[in-house]
């Protein structure tokens, strides 16, 4: 599934990084502790977090993730948006919580493991 398909399926708002919308989603990961995400997030993941600081973009690039969904309606910082544009990492926002969002993604066939 491509990142752009998530928008329609889950009514996500795209906050930044539109040029990365064709990235392929291969897995999912939840985490707000960036040191944990840096160590464990799988390649091609869509990452669910409440963290909105610009470091999330660097972490997403480092782990070669496909997209980031900010849950609980948390908006990204301006710096975060600018970095996401630069790196082409789509940042989505949802009012859903991480648990529900992860459940929906899982049901749609996105697992926690690398394919």
């Amino acid at each position, binding site marked *: 599934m491509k990142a752009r398909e998530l928008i329609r399926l889950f009514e996500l708002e795209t906050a930044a990084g539109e040029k990365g919308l064709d990235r392929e989603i291969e897995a999912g990961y939840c985490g707000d*502790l*960036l*040191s944990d*995400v*840096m160590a464990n997030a799988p390649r091609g993941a869509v990452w669910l977090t409440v*963290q909105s*600081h*610009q*470091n999330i973009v*660097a*972490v997403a690039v480092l782990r070669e993730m496909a997209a980031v969904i900010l849950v609980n309606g948390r908006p990204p*910082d301006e*710096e975060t948006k600018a970095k996401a544009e630069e790196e082409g990492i789509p940042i989505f926002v949802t009012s859903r919580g991480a648990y529900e969002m992860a459940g929906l993604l899982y049901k749609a066939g996105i697992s926690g493991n690398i394919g």
Partner: protein
Amino acid sequence: MRRFKADLHIHSCLSPCGDLDMSPRGIVEASLQKGLDLIALCDHNTAENVGAVIRAGKERGLWVLPGMEVNSYEEVHSLALFDREAQVLEMQTFVYNHLQGTNRPELFGEQVVANEFDEVEGFNDRLLIGATGIRLVDIINKVHRLGGLCIASHVDRPSYSVVSQLGFISPGLEFDALEVSPRTDLEKARKDIPGAADYPLVTFSDAHFLKDIGGVCTEFLLDHPGIEEIRMALKQEQGRGIVEGPCGN
């Protein structure tokens, strides 16, 4: 120039996790016993006990800097250190305006406001343990605008540190120094923590109990105690500096 043994990260009984024995006089006496010359009171998201500790210190010849340990929106702790009580109280207004919730003492601990005679003045009912709604970068900038120093708390710890929360220290964060907790050796910290080599490192006790005060400290070479002098020491300017080697008991 003189050597000053400094422990600039001490909590009082006003911090929900601070022991009730951490009264203004208790802190001052324990600091003197450990041979400290300079301390800072840094309670979580509040400075209401700062004045009492300053006055208790003055009476006994111990220099006390007004401070606060602020919890950011990203749940990163950092130390805000100032020269004057008025500055930290202005910081406190900023923090209180962005701090929500009510403390539940049975869950988080009592938050005792005391005077310099160790008398209970009241209880703070704010959720001091909570995160403020202020972004880390805005905390750092506010501290600097008020003329203070901003030091990242316990960067080696797995929780509430800039490294645990944000993975690494991004260049836009203008910390004046990083604090390494007693659990990690400074050399090891400099080598292992991403980005740490670019900052001056200090180590303080983060004491929540009297017995921990001055367990580790940082020895500064200063002309006199004060924020500008410490700023120069961190940058090793004009003969000011950090004395290498063990400090503490």
